[in-house]
């Protein structure tokens, strides 16, 4: 009997405490809104989908630390929240960061966007920035911003390294020109992936004319086993070089096992494949982090662009160290030239004279820039498909499946 009374009491306390908190809420809520103007107690909060075991998140974390060192922020001024799912838990995490005194909050995963936007509406005095998102340029909320990088240019440069390797293999008699088939492991059938694979392919074909490409999706951003299986399936179907847009070591390691050259993304994979890894393209988020921290610190947070896209010029797009043991001769010089051309603006990845769709040259393409799943903006002008254009949005919208030469496995 006493057991029952105890338990009932406990339940009653729970219920009462809930209402007690509800009652006192309204008085305390306003007090947190006042702070945040001063620059001395500046704080920035980062929301990450996973922890440092994911190469995707680690790339952001490394950049955050670099920006922290460069701008002389202390550890107490930079707060990380890891393993935050793409649900209302992301909104909770953002609100907690506001409570901890953050003036600037950054989230790194596409699915965080709606929840970050929700928090941005609630806390107009805090700046919210979000990577890979698509809606800030449409919503035009003063404290809500998207960012990406013109990584398709980096992919194109990495593609040149791949094409030169194919040329070397053809010249050495290892394969015929027709056998120059590239395999591409993609995460999802999504514009970001399609844009990346197409630019990679165009880079390769700019030096190796006979190159073709087969694509296989894993339907996951991070799955070691699936990425490995996809790479092996591509190799078994005759692909002689593999690249991937997925975040694990599955594909590079499978390539090392089968002695197939590999071009990677976001991290250098030379240690995983010393005899097969050629190069990686990557986004360096440090320039963007420096920009948003400096702007917010000086009280000009609303000057952060709604939608920011960094390229080679800003230092946002990079290629990692070239593995000269694997790469073909003269690769470095060719890469340097392409990068210089991108910096000068003279080279266009999606030059419509360089590719066809169903045998025809594109003169118009309505891309879905505003994110309502229907194309409305013609993004082809002056003879090229204008990806991640300044007056459009940073997140890729090249979703043409597929240009001639690319096919699904």
């Amino acid at each position, binding site marked *: 009997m*006493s*057991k029952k009374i*105890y*338990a*009932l009491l*406990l*339940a009653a306390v*729970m*219920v009462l405490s*809930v*209402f007690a*908190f*509800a*009652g*006192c*809420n*309204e008085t*305390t*809520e306003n007090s947190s809104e006042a702070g945040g103007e001063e620059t001395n107690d500046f704080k920035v909060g980062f929301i990450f989908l996973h*922890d*440092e075991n994911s190469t995707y998140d680690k790339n952001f974390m490394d950049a955050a630390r670099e920006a922290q060192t460069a701008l002389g922020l202390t*550890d*107490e001024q*930079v*707060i*990380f*929240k*890891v*393993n935050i*799912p*793409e*649900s*209302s*838990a992301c909104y*909770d995490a953002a*609100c*907690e960061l506001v*409570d901890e005194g953050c003036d600037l909050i950054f989230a790194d995963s*596409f*699915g965080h*966007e*709606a*929840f970050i936007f*929700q928090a941005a509406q609630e806390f107009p005095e805090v700046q919210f920035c979000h990577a890979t998102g698509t809606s800030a340029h449409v919503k035009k909320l003063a404290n809500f911003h998207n960012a990406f990088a013109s990584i398709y240019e980096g992919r194109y440069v990495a593609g040149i390294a791949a094409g030169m390797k194919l040329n070397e293999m053809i010249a050495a008699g290892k394969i015929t020109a027709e056998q120059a088939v590239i395999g591409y492991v993609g995460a*999802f*059938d*999504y*514009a*970001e992936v399609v844009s990346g694979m197409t630019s990679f392919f165009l880079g390769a074909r700019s030096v190796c004319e006979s190159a073709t490409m087969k694509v296989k999706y894993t*339907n996951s951003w991070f799955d070691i086993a699936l990425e490995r299986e996809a790479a092996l399936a591509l190799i078994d179907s005759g692909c002689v070089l593999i690249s991937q847009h997925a975040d694990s070591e599955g594909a590079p390691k499978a390539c090392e096992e089968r002695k197939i050259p590999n071009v990677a993304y976001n991290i250098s994979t030379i240690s995983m494949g010393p005899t097969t890894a050629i190069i990686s393209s990557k986004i360096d988020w440090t320039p963007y982090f420096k920009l948003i921290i400096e702007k917010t610190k000086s009280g000009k947070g609303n000057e952060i662009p709604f939608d920011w896209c960094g390229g080679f010029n800003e230092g946002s797009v990079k290629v990692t160290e070239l593995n000269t043991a694997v790469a073909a001769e003269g690769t470095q010089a060719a890469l340097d030239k392409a990068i210089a051309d991108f910096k000068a603006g003279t080279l266009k990845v999606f030059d419509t004279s360089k590719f066809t769709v169903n045998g025809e040259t594109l003169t118009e393409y309505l891309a*879905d820039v505003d*994110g309502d*799943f229907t194309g409305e903006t013609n993004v082809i002008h002056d003879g090229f498909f204008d990806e991640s254009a300044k007056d459009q949005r940073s997140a890729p919208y090249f*979703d043409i499946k597929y240009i001639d030469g690319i096919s699904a496995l």
Partner: protein
Amino acid sequence: MSNQIKASHEPLIHVTKRDAMVWWKSWLIRIIAVIAAMMVGTAFTWILTGVSPIEIVKTMFEGSFGTERKIWIFLKDSAMLLGISLAVTPAFKMRFWNTGAEGQVLIGALASVTCMFYLGDKLSNVVTLLIMLAASIVAGAIWAGVAGFFKAKWNTNETLFTLMMNYVAMQLVAFCIMKWVPSGSMVLSPLNSTTQTGWLPSVFGQKYLLNIAIVLVITVIMFVYLKFSKHGYEISVVGESENTARYIGINVKKVILRTVIISGALCGIMGWLYVAGLDHSIETGTVGGNGFTAIMVSWLAKFHPLFMVVASLLICFLQIGSGALASNPSLKLNSSLGDIITGIIILFIIGSEFFIRYKVNFRKKHKEEANKNA
């Protein structure tokens, strides 16, 4: 001669079953177990990382109680876990090992999201919410009911059956998202975010209060249902022995099916709460493993709804605490460490049940001497 001595040789430790223990004694043992586990866990961390135990305990407490918002999040998370634990309990009490709560909640959530997606803001908020609730209950009940039907009809293994249904539910969710989001991003943005149709309203300015209150109501109902209703009695008899149940005239198949459907329907309600009260969207990970953690909560509380309140508060405290450890910049800890501490604490709690049920007897000294003399 020596053989005889060995035969009568009493082991150093032997274990005997205790009689029922006074309630406060058993709770004292449990509390001691938690404190001992905290000490071992933090000492372990101290040795490995040099972070002091006080700092760890402080960080963990701040994670759940540091600010008013944190307390709300803590209560909301606990309520969601509690709700699912309550949902699996009637089936568990009947020894129907429902490992499919994750999928049953998810399919309930999917039913709600489907209603929101296709109804949009055509109907009023209240009507939309009610339609969503009905759809979720039916979906959860069907998802569990299929396994219950096969169990009652052909005595299939419900553990494997319900477990597999989780993956079917996840694939269905993935399929629907793929269909609804043509861009292929696999992310469904919160639905009706401007009109908030199909969203549970804030009460007293609190977003999560309604979620918590609904789960507390379910707790009380479940307590009464299991303890005082005829159904509750039938469930415990079937759980103890199906033959006894048959002998006293209980229709075992009917009870199994009915209980499993109730269990699934409750999971469906929790799925509705995830959508209407929290996310307003869905992903394959919406339930976030709570469907499995709920099994542990239900067991820790020995299928008692009110003790489940305590158990889910404890588990959530540990989960949030482990996240807080990983997010504290001055500690430089990884989230795995919090998980290790959580593991140690749960191990100690489960271990403490042993000391509540059994008595450990050490060999008495005088007997040892007597043996020596012989």
